[in-house]
């Protein structure tokens, strides 16, 4: 019998019930909640006279709708429907007695940044949230994935999920990364190689030297976009970097419990003889700084290439590429580095952490953004914002001409007023370039924070290696 993968081990450690037909109940250690996908779930509980089974394992924070402008505590800053949704989370958190970080709290931020920051996310846990980017927490060796609102209600009521086991996929990034290549380039390049449905039905474990070399922030960026590759979750085995990051956080174990936790956490890795249903290996040195050209995260190419011709694809992708080029206003053969942009967005659960802001600020130091450019930095949490101010990064952004915003999801999905207008073209550090994602008829190019900062300065998509 072959050994177990990390996913197998976490699965086994959380199996609360297995029916004769193989249907499993998986116990959930942390349930993160935000304002958009939870109101109907809480309403369902109320209608059925049910309670939250484990309020101490349930953490809520408003992030999707909230304005990112100063003075946002003033409810007049929010449109009526957003205000109602945030107010519903306020009152549900109070009514059901769950942990809550309101907009006025400095610890508020994007739920996937707040969880790890506060030590709620720990190795070996099961973590769910009504948000597909829950995969982020996999960076800690936690099995973390997005769920729909019915499942949010199911977890609130039972602290379990009805699950079927996924298959195991190993994505190995060998060797070292070249200068200018970041975690974002890794994760986009993997999606480029496997496609947006390549991971469907799998849990991915990322491994290899290039992954081990990443900081925790970088690992979160990689796992964050596992969902964009179709995978249910992305995982990275915990190591000393993980433990170092977790230690001392407000909700991390302390004293004897820390020692006990460490003893278990150190066993959390795939066995050498584990069975993998699919293996993808990419050489770290082959990864270049990349940008997306189309309307799916798989439409990704190295920055020094040209816009592809739809005929170069096969099957349904030919039509999809035609539609994407039409939507994006691009011509086959056009150099990617000639594409002019008018907006830059740095932030999101993909790239709104301190390391991301440092990387962008490093490029912007002593420079100005191009005339007429709209550029904003939206830190992932109030604490990231405060740290960036302390490190002098905020001043660099402001002096360069960036708007320095409050924390939230912002223009990643444009549910709040931070949106693209029709035809505007954005260099964005977010995770989705779908049609209309950042605003009706807005055009999104995904890239790393350093690449987005470089684009803000030059006014077009730019090879970061030329600015280093």
């Amino acid at each position, binding site marked *: 019998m072959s050994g177990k993968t990390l996913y197998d081990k976490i699965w086994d450690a959380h199996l*609360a*019930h297995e*029916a004769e*037909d*193989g249907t499993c*109940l998986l*116990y959930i250690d942390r349930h993160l909640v935000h304002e*958009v*996908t939870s109101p*109907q779930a809480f309403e369902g509980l109320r209608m059925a006279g*049910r309670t939250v*089974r484990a309020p101490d*394992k349930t953490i809520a924070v408003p992030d*999707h*709708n909230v304005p990112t402008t100063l003075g946002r505590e003033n409810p007049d800053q929010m449109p009526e*429907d957003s205000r*109602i*949704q945030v107010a*519903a989370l306020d009152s549900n958190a109070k009514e059901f007695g769950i942990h809550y970080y309101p907009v006025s709290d400095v610890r508020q931020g994007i739920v996937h940044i707040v969880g790890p920051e506060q030590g709620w996310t720990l190795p070996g846990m099961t973590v769910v949230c*009504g*948000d*597909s980017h829950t995969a982020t927490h996999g960076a800690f060796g936690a099995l973390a*994935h*997005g*769920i*729909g*609102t019915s*499942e949010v209600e*199911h977890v609130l*009521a*039972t*602290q*379990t999920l*009805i699950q079927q086991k996924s298959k195991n996929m190993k994505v190995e990034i060998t060797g070292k990364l070249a200068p200018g290549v970041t975690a974002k380039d890794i994760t986009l390049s993997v999606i480029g190689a496997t496609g*947006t*449905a390549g991971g*469907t039905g799998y849990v991915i474990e990322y491994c290899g030297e290039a992954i081990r070399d990443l900081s925790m922030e970088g690992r979160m960026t990689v796992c964050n976009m596992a*969902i964009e590759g*179709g995978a*249910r979750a992305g995982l990275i085995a915990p190591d000393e970097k993980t433990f170092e990051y977790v230690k001392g956080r407000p909700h991390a174990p302390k004293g004897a*419990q*820390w020692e*006990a*936790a460490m003893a*278990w956490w150190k066993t959390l890795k795939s066995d050498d003889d584990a069975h993998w249903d699919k293996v993808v290996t990419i050489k770290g040195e082959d990864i270049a700084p990349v940008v997306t050209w189309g309307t*799916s995260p798989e439409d990704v190419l190295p920055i020094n290439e040209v816009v592809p011709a739809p005929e170069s694809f096969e099957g*349904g*992708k030919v*039509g*999809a590429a035609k*539609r994407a080029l039409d939507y994006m206003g691009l011509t086959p053969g056009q150099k990617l580095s000639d594409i002019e942009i008018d907006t830059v967005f740095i932030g999101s659960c993909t790239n709104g952490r301190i390391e991301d802001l440092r990387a962008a600020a490093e490029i912007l130091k002593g420079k100005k953004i191009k005339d007429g450019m709209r550029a904003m930095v939206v830190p992932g949490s109030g604490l990231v914002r405060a740290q960036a101010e302390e490190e002098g990064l905020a001043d660099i952004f402001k002096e360069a001409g960036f708007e320095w915003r409050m924390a939230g999801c912002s223009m990643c*999905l*444009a*549910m709040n007023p931070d949106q693209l207008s029709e035809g505007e073209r954005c260099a964005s550090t977010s995770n*989705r370039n*779908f*049609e*209309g*994602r950042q605003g*009706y008829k807005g055009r999104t190019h995904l890239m790393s924070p350093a690449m987005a900062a470089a684009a803000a300065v030059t006014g077009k998509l730019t090879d970061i290696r030329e600015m280093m």
Partner: protein
Amino acid sequence: MEKFDKLTGIAAPLPLVNIDTDMIIPKQFLKTIKRSGLGVNLFDEMRYDRQGNEIEDFVLNKPAYRDAQILVAGDNFGCGSSREHAPWALLDFGIRCVISTSFADIFYNNCFKNGILPIVLPQEDVDKLMDDAERGSNAVITVDLESQTITGPDGGEISFEVDPWRKHCLLNGLDDIGLTLEKAPSIDAFEAKMSAERPWV
């Protein structure tokens, strides 16, 4: 949840790959705190122009497909966000079944929680049904969950796979939460064991 046993209805063709949940229901409609009323905004940006007028050549605006109950779509339907507003919008419009070569995981799950049957078929079967769906008001197909078969307008039958547990729940319109709560003693026992073994959780 409404039961799903047998459905005979118009099938609408959507021959696009990677139809994401932002397309199915754009974010501005996620600000609701209800599950109902989203059907009018299903595929909003493909269905209406900026002034809110219907775009004539979008399939669900064509007279033959306005009452469609089945969608036949390209690969990887429902990718992207976890928003259950996507199946809510489909259901509210009247769609009870989506057929494709593949679905994104979370969307696929969300369908079953809302009485919608997502069916995965090989490319050749989807191509055949896509052709059938192109026949306008003659694009009537029957989906029988009990026998796991799809019958096209010409009487040809295609069989499909579905997980037995999910089939059982759909056929009977069962509420997951109620069923799981029947297993509360197992959850209690698991929790007790865990608080001894992993007290830091």
